[in-house]
């Protein structure tokens, strides 16, 4: 039997796609990882060891958190770059928010607050009123829930950085938008829920404060440093019972820090003694004469306090510190040191995610999820066997039924190749989609078979092509309706359903354009004895 390139081009096209799919599935090119990190994340990696397929949470286990951003935005305002800080301070005053919770951006001509009625106390009406106080003509209906695109992108970057730093390979944070709302979806294969929420739930604003007795011996605090002042951050370390993160400040911050130390008596010989009690509040400590301390503050909460070691104090005094501004931020445990390091490196989130009130979380035990992989394969296989049985009953001709099954299988194979090529993480919803595709596929193959094998000869190409076209009208029309029916889901953000819709649409396209036409050609050769 010879396959003519021109006459049987449909079969050749199918073969080409089968080869491409094989390459996408098994070739070790660029596949290892895909969206995964480097190879040392093997333990957490959600990929398969045999193929380039990626598996989603439902088939690999792990945690997914999906939550909106805390904040409100008013855009389309008109102000100059030098007005930014004035607007911010008016809003801070009016809404009683801290400086980190208000942001005016000239580039986007927008003002946002990172507080809303769900998390915090600021309502849309409050925000509009505060903007009126700042001289804008804003009404409540101008206030949009959510934050600017710039802020969202920033949060996405920081979260991804945190996941990388924590070594949660394969974990990803990505933005998803639904009509009128934007969400952040964080998926971490292999991780449990608490671990993930702890990692992404906090703003992670690290500051270093100085605590010292001022006039009349009442204690004062001064914020000296935050993440942006650090030039270099070392690895969290443990040495002789001390756990710490070595840091080096950039030049300006070094000089500013040295000045502040000298101005407030931190340069006294022999260092300073610090009696700060972490169990008690800052105010209580300030009433209790704690001595001069450097406080490490995470999201406004004092997490560590220490005095100044003698050699560091003398380097403040001599000004040597200003030249080479590095020191160790000490912590209570190695775990804390690690967290501090990650926060320093990844930077702070401009706003938080509201997981508690408006979020969803999902956790699936990895060992259970692992079982779903072979089991869902088995389910799919039995469904195919059922189809095979029915088709044999109806046609009683292996040369009609066998290619039908092979074609349906080829469709799934190409679809899997597509999933591997684009790095689509497979979930149960995708498996349901695969089964849907097999279903519509077999329907179409039955239509083709019945149409082509109706009574009368198919000796000439003309007759064959005419019958093929007739069959194709129904197939094409049905495919178009399926695609139309699925397309809203591919766009709407309904989690699971999006994957299902995408697989079904792509599967139907592959079927209609590649595999199902090829079946027509195969039938022509096998059944109609067309050997020419």
């Amino acid at each position, binding site marked *: 039997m010879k396959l003519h390139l021109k006459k049987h081009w449909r079969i050749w096209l199918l073969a080409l796609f089968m080869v491409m799919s094989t390459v996408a599935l098994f070739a070790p090119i660029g596949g290892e990882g895909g969206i995964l990190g480097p190879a040392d994340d093997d333990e957490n990696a959600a990929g398969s060891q045999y193929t380039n397929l990626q598996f989603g949470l439902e088939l690999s286990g792990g945690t997914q958190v999906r939550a909106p951003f805390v904040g409100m935005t008013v855009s389309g305002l008109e102000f100059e770059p030098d007005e930014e800080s004035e607007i911010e301070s008016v809003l801070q005053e009016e809404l009683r928010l801290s400086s980190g919770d208000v942001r005016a951006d000239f580039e986007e001509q927008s003002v946002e607050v990172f507080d809303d009625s769900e998390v915090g106390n600021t309502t849309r009406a409050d925000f509009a009123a505060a903007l009126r106080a700042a001289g804008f003509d804003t009404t409540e209906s101008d206030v949009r829930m959510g934050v600017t695109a710039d802020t969202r992108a920033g949060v996405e970057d920081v979260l991804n950085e945190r996941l990388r730093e924590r070594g949660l390979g394969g974990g990803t944070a990505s933005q998803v938008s639904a009509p009128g709302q934007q969400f952040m979806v964080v998926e971490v294969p292999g991780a449990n829920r608490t671990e993930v929420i702890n990692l992404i739930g906090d703003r992670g604003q690290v500051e270093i404060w100085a605590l010292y007795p001022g006039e009349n011996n009442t204690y004062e605090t001064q914020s000296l440093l935050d993440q942006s002042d650090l030039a270099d951050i070392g690895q969290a370390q443990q040495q002789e019972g001390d756990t710490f993160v070595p840091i080096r400040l950039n030049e300006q911050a070094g000089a500013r820090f040295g000045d502040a130390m000298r101005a407030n008596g931190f340069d006294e010989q022999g260092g300073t003694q610090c009696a700060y009690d972490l169990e008690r509040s800052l105010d209580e400590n300030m009433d209790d004469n704690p001595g001069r301390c450097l406080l490490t503050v995470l999201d406004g909460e004092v997490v560590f306090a220490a005095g100044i070691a003698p050699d560091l104090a003398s380097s403040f005094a001599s000004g040597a510190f200003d030249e080479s501004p590095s020191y160790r931020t000490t912590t209570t445990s190695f775990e804390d040191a690690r967290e501090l390091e990650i926060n320093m490196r990844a930077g702070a989130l401009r706003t938080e995610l509201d997981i508690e009130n408006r*979020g969803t979380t999902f956790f699936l035990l990895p060992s259970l999820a692992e079982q779903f992989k072979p089991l869902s394969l088995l389910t799919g296989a039995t469904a195919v066997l059922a189809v095979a049985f029915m088709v044999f009953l109806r046609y009683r001709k292996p040369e009609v039924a066998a290619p039908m099954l092979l074609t349906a299988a080829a469709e799934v194979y190409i679809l899997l190749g597509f999933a591997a090529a684009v790095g689509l993480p497979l979930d149960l919803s995708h498996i349901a989609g695969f089964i849907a595709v097999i279903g*519509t596929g077999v329907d179409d193959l039955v239509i083709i078979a019945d149409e082509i094998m109706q009574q009368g000869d198919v000796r000439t190409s003309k007759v064959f092509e005419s019958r093929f076209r007739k069959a194709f009208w129904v197939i094409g029309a*049905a495919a178009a309706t399926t695609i*139309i029916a699925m397309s*809203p889901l591919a766009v709407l953000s*309904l989690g699971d*359903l999006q994957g*299902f819709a995408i697989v079904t649409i792509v599967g139907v396209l592959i079927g209609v354009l590649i595999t199902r036409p090829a079946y027509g050609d195969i039938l022509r050769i096998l059944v109609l004895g067309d050997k020419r």
Partner: protein
Amino acid sequence: MDASVPKVDYTEYTNRQLVVIPLGLLAVALGILAVATVVTGTPVALGIEFTGGTEMQVVTTDSPAEIEATFDGEVQSITPIAGQANTYQLTFQADDADPIIEQAEAADYEIESVGERSASFAADSQRQALLGLAIAFAGMALLVALMFRTFVPSLAVIASAFSDIMIPLALMRLFNIELTLGTVAALLMLIGYSVDSDLLLNNHILRRHGDFYTSTFRAMRTGVTMTVTSIAAMVVMTVVAYLLGIPLLPDVGLILVFGLLADLMNTYLLNVSLLRYYKYEGIAK
């Protein structure tokens, strides 16, 4: 076993006789949904994806009554998972999972999965899913109308697709299957499957030469094979996935079985009689 598709002699029945069964069933389905809406507030029971709440799968040797006592808050449902001994699916109305997880851990339950969905998010999902279904249906209807450009044949396809969705919804209510994202997917898939056989029938009757009954029989031979094959595949998938304890797939499968059965009836009773009316009376006028 004879696998050939039976030949129905449609000439023996009037259009009115043919239409009465599908329309009657559709009316019953709509009635069930209407009553359910009045009584419970929603036409079908909603899963936590659409109501908010917490869903947890645990492994424990405790009995359901003991499980109930383990948690402070009310446990909305406790369902054993088929195929896995001592495994239960628990649902809670509370949408804060933390205390529930703590209590489960304190009782030494092994937590296999936890899903938590806040009420406001769930309300959004509900709106979006409804919107998705509506757009999908409208898109399908528009496309069908464009393809046939005549009223009765388009109506025949659209009406049977509508009924193919409503009957499974009513059955969901009767069997108490919750509407989840998976079952919404199945309902959407039904739009595609349902239109398949209707298009085939319309195509054979309207676009081919030959007598009405011969065309109908040819379309039926192909169409019934298609639908029955799909039903077989879905029955097998439902049973196997249920026995193996795989979530999502049994619900999807069952809804499709309902819908495809409804489709057999709607295509070959409702659609056929509408087309016969169109062919013999609609055009003649």
